């Protein structure tokens, strides 16, 4: 993919816009494609040109489609789905993990609820001190599927390690239009798999539903913690990613059936980038 072996070949940047518009004659288009196979510079130029052509698609005066069109499409889909069942869609459902990488095929974690966990790094230190000395008076919250809410020594060690790590980072995750008042913070280190998730402003879910955290790399999600929030919309929990956090570029939360899903099925309520600290 490097340019070095083809340095003598002329770049095709002056034809990239026409190529992105799809108006080059066949021979010229083939020449551009041959060059693109090994030229990162022209590939970048093509991405930029395609962004413009994508925007051009929005330029026409917007006209609302007829109201009946949506139902017409959904009816057609239902008809098609009925014809294809059961050999395609139903059998395809268990394959939702096809996007997951091999070492990410384990069932998602059930989150460990951390009672009354604070929302700042300083507050965490005070909280850890209380937990270590056994002076916590927080009532025991019940985690999903009966998970004990009491942090174990391992969890406390993780928190302590994060608090003292020079690489620790606090990532901000924002509520989407599905949950505009929600937001979350993820305290962790890019070099570690474990992190602490602090959630606020989420609606408690009805029985039979849980929130699920997803880590995404290049748009492909892998499931992580499953949890619910308290009546006040808050949740604090320890989560574990299949790989180091630096491996992922995004984190997102969706509501799912109780126990979580192998792939996301609900709308994203919170999401944010995991930029390098």
């Amino acid at each position, binding site marked *: 993919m490097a340019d070095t072996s083809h340095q003598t070949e002329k770049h095709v940047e002056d034809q990239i816009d026409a190529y992105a518009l799809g108006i080059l004659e066949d021979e010229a288009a083939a020449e551009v494609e041959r060059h693109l196979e090994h030229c990162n510079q022209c590939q970048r130029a093509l991405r930029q040109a395609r*962004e413009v052509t*994508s925007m051009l698609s*929005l330029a*026409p005066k917007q*006209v609302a489609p007829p109201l009946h069109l949506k139902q017409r499409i*959904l009816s057609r889909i239902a008809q098609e789905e009925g014809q294809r069942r059961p050999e395609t869609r139903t059998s395809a459902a268990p394959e*939702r993990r096809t996007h997951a990488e091999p070492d990410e095929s384990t069932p998602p974690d059930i989150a460990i609820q951390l009672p009354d966990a604070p929302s700042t790094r300083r507050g965490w230190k005070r909280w850890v001190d209380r937990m270590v000395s056994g002076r916590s008076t927080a009532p025991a919250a019940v985690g999903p599927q009966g998970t004990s809410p009491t942090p174990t020594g391992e969890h406390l060690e993780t928190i302590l390690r994060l608090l003292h790590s020079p690489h620790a980072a606090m990532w901000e995750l924002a509520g989407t239009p599905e949950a505009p008042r929600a937001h979350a913070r993820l305290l962790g280190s890019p070099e570690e798999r474990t992190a602490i998730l602090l959630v606020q402003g989420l609606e408690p879910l009805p029985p039979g539903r849980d929130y699920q955290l997803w880590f995404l790399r290049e748009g492909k999600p892998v499931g992580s913690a499953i949890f619910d929030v308290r009546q006040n919309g808050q949740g604090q929990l320890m989560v574990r990613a299949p790989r180091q956090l630096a491996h992922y570029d995004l984190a997102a939360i969706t509501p799912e059936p109780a126990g979580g899903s192998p792939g996301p099925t609900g709308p994203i309520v919170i*999401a944010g980038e995991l930029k390098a600290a």
Partner: protein
Amino acid sequence: MGSERLANQEIEDTFLVQRVANGDSSALEKLYDRYGQAVYSLALRIVREPGTAEDLTQEVFVRLWRYAGTYDSTRGRFSGWLLGITRNLALNEVRRWQSRPQKADLVTDDDERAYELVDESADSAEAAWLNIRREAIVQAMRQLPAPQRRAIELAFFGGLTHLEIANLLGDPLGTIKSRIRIGMQRLKQLLLAQGIEAD
């Protein structure tokens, strides 16, 4: 606000497409609510006939239903992918009608009204976000010199090659190539100036 909204929108789109690939018709419905108008409007702009635009819009979403699993988010935005399918289907339809669209069909959007910023009844955050992007490209197109804008329109909405545009407008081939290249570069600059990243 733009980049954060954009990132959230793209993540949501990716999740919705995956749900469609898993056979979830409610996700398809949501994507229709989000992009149905943009698909229909682009189809209508190219084929100029509401009934055909309606048929094409249905075909686009049926194809989305069938082939959602082939969408690769690392290769570009979902909206670009979906509208690219729309444009290809619409141009193919036009080519099927006639060997090439007639001049009268293609130049009518030289009229400023083609770029009116009408009230698009943005009743959702997603629609508002699309309107922001549309406003950016409309403003950028308005700032192009008319000959550059016309050449780009004929290429994009007419699907004409350099040579066909040159013959249609009676201008030298080199002039048409320059107009399109310079016009596209100018669009990139104008979009960037409005905070729309072109990469």
